[in-house]
């Protein structure tokens, strides 16, 4: 049970950026030994708030105290010295270095020396975070990489751990393991400030939730006593409807992938092995899998950014396009939404207007751009997909993740594609935007387009997909109708290839004196 005395007290914190109040007079407290959820849409101010707690951003106003003493960290090292640790959503790890070396890089010098490997092994054993200090990070799964970040954090004996969307990259089994670790930490008196937009897991894990909207605290509750829908409505400040899957249609085959085999591009890349599937018009074809199992490689071949092995490997509306580039494929009616927004599906430093040109050229034969048409399209996208922006001439970087994703999806949909391929359409996107994007995909399928959704979010796939296949280790399982599948079964299939080489018993552990 949480002790009553507050560990962290936040009192009237505010932070403004030009044109926006990111955090506005926020007050709440985290008591010792509780898992406290911080809930809110993207852009609600969660990240700015925890960055202030972790010393990455200085507040304009307000005060914090930790254990009754004033707390104003000016840099993360100061926060860590006071017992505040943070596990980020995006890992900062080097593929070519070992686990131990990676951990050492993130620690103060005094802690990074000596028997570090022993301490890593001890902490990882104590908390069920199985990890071998000697292995190369490049060989590890995403879940294992996250464990490195957590171990690095725990090595510094924190009393408060901030976790930013930790399960967004995990399989259901990995997430369950993580929850066991977090509960163990809580029982030992460590507090956890837990950021997530997955409402079910907040209900299962957290004792208290503070809900942010537009930078302000709009409520707090005990999530165990709320429904997921109730939480979502508190977060959005509005009621919303879940998208409905269309009845199965049996249109003509619009996309066909045949015998797609390609070697890995880089040392830590994934080779694609004999991938076959076909998608009919009106259908949403889901591809589930844990990150790093060949999704990005498959995406690159489907967009044409990487050439296929033969022209017949990818067929769109009975036309072979396997060796065509992205521009030619778009001319055949394809459209794409890659996973990464910053720098792949959008250029952060260019305006929204200019970003329109990435997927449709709007230019004459001689190459002169019709800027009026481009601007009209940008306005159309912003209006049709409710993109919240101060103006279409602002750079893409200034939009929140959810809004930029709505813009990108809207841009692709307005090219009226016959075949749409999306990778992680709602990754890092708030509930409101996610539901809007999913509805838009369903609507497109209803008009007779074939839609492929590659996603790690099983809830999402079960909500919108008509058929599902699993990608693991660069191989794609046969597809099956969603009605015949369960989340648990798919979760196991996703993890199936994942420990293809089980974590090697630390062969040199004895030499290093770990077992001594």
């Amino acid at each position, binding site marked *: 049970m949480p002790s009553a005395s507050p560990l962290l007290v936040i009192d009237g914190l505010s932070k403004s950026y030009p044109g926006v109040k990111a955090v506005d007079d926020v007050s709440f407290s985290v008591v010792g030994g509780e898992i406290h959820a911080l809930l809110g849409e993207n852009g609600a101010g969660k990240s700015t708030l925890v960055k202030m707690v972790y010393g990455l951003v200085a507040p304009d106003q307000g005060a914090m105290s930790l254990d009754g003493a004033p*707390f104003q960290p000016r840099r993360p090292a100061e926060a860590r010295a006071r017992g505040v640790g943070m596990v980020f959503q995006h890992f900062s790890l080097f593929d070519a270095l070992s686990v131990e070396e990676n951990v050492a890089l993130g620690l103060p010098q005094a802690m990074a020396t000596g028997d570090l490997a022993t301490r890593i092994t001890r902490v990882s054993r104590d908390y069920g975070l199985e990890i071998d200090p000697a292995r190369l990070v490049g060989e590890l799964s995403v879940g294992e990489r996250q464990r490195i970040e957590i171990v690095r954090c725990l090595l510094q004996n924190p009393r408060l751990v901030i976790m930013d969307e930790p399960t967004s990259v995990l399989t259901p089994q990995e997430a369950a393991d993580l929850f066991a670790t977090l509960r163990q930490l809580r029982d030992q008196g460590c507090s956890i400030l837990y950021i997530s937009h997955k409402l079910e897991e907040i209900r299962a894990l957290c004792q208290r939730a503070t809900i942010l909207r537009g930078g302000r605290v709009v409520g707090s509750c005990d999530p165990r006593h709320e429904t997921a829908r109730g939480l979502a409505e508190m977060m959005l400040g509005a009621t919303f409807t879940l998208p409905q899957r269309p009845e199965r249609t049996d249109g003509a085959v619009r996309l066909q992938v045949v015998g797609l085999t390609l070697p890995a591009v880089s040392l830590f890349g994934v080779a694609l092995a004999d991938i076959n599937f076909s998608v009919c018009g009106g259908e949403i074809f889901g591809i589930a899998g844990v990150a790093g199992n060949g999704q990005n490689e498959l995406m690159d071949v489907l967009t044409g950014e990487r050439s296929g092995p033969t022209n017949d490997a990818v067929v769109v509306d009975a036309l072979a396009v396997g060796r065509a580039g992205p521009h030619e494929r778009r001319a055949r009616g394809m459209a794409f939404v890659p996973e990464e927004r910053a720098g792949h599906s959008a250029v952060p430093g260019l305006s929204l207007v200019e970003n329109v040109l990435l997927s449709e050229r709007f230019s004459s034969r001689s190459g002169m*751009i019709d800027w009026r048409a481009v601007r009209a399209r940008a306005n159309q996208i912003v209006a049709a997909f409710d993109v919240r922006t101060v103006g279409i001439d602002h750079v893409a970087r200034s939009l929140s993740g959810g809004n930029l994703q709505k813009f990108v999806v809207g841009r692709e949909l307005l090219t009226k594609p016959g075949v749409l391929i999306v990778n992680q359409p709602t990754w890092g996107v708030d509930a409101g935007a996610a539901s809007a994007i999913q509805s838009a995909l369903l609507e497109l399928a209803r008009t007779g387009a074939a839609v492929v959704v590659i996603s790690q979010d099983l809830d999402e796939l079960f909500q919108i997909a008509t058929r599902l296949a699993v990608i693991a280790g660069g191989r794609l399982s046969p597809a099956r109708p969603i009605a015949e599948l369960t989340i648990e079964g798919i979760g196991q299939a996703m993890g199936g290839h994942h420990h293809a080489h089980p974590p090697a018993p630390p062969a040199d552990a004895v030499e290093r004196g770990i077992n001594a």
Partner: protein
Amino acid sequence: MRNAMVRLEPRREPSRVMLYATPFVAFVLTLLAGLVLFWALGKDPVRALGLIFITPLTSVRGVAELLVKSTPLILIATGLAFGFRAGVWNIGAEGQFTIGAISGGAVALYFHPGGGPLLLPAMMLAGVLGGVAWAAIPALLRTHFNANEILTSLMLVYVALLLLGLMVQGPLRDPQSYNFPESKLFQNAALLPALIPKTRAHIGFLIAVGVVAVAHVLMTRHILGFMVRVFGDAPRAAAFAGFSEKRMVWLSFAISGGLAGLSGLFEAAGPVGQLVPQLPSGYGFTAIIVAFLGRLQPLGILAAGLLLGLTHIGGETAQITMSLPSATTSVFQGMLLFFLLASDVLVNFRLRFGLRAPVGVGGN
């Protein structure tokens, strides 16, 4: 004092005002540093700056010389800016300039002493092609072997300079030069018409202005300019849009090499009038400063080219009349670039003066 009096605060978006204001900030800072520098050297600082920045503009000859100096800077920098914006780093414009001069000059010398009205256009074409050919080497090495184009293009500068030496001592040497390494003086048909009578200013300047205008339209209204910007900012997004990286590398080198070659030919067929080993005098390197000072935008480059041309001529005047060290010009150009890069921080950050807003009670 726990908090600094002046802090840098990141901006959400790069400031457009600062983007265009910082070149002027850099210029003012250069002037101030120049004042201090001359004062420390024991020279009259105001007179020195006047000689550098004002005197050349008070005579027709001074203005003509300014056009002569800035023509190659503007031409080369406009070409380089394409590649620099796309993240393709051609540092070897000096070499492409040299090869352009050799190939264009060779055409003139082949027809010596004759040649009709088509001779000059033919020389220009040869100059452009020479520059493109020399730039094609680093482009090929980059696209086929992933060799770093900064190193290969730079090293080829020295090869080009030696090649020029070889030519003017061998095949292209004037037989009556008493073994001096120089070509014949170009015939009249091979010399650029004067822009201002009785001066060295030639019509190359008009061509440079025309090139700037075309480049401006390409950058702002053509899909090519868009492609260049996407490549520089996000290469993966360029691949997503279907733009090929190899094509971008080739195109960047072709444009920058061609314009460098053309300006090399202008130098040979304009102020110099023959091929000599001293023909390449650093325009290809100074143009890199011009490109950045002009914000990698054609119109900005036009202004920056004129400004650097001015420091060049004024610097020489000041060196002679006030017996200043010969490094004065280079120091000025270096300071300009230095202050520009330093003040660029204002584009992405804003300055906040005064103490930080108090956060709680000071701990410890």
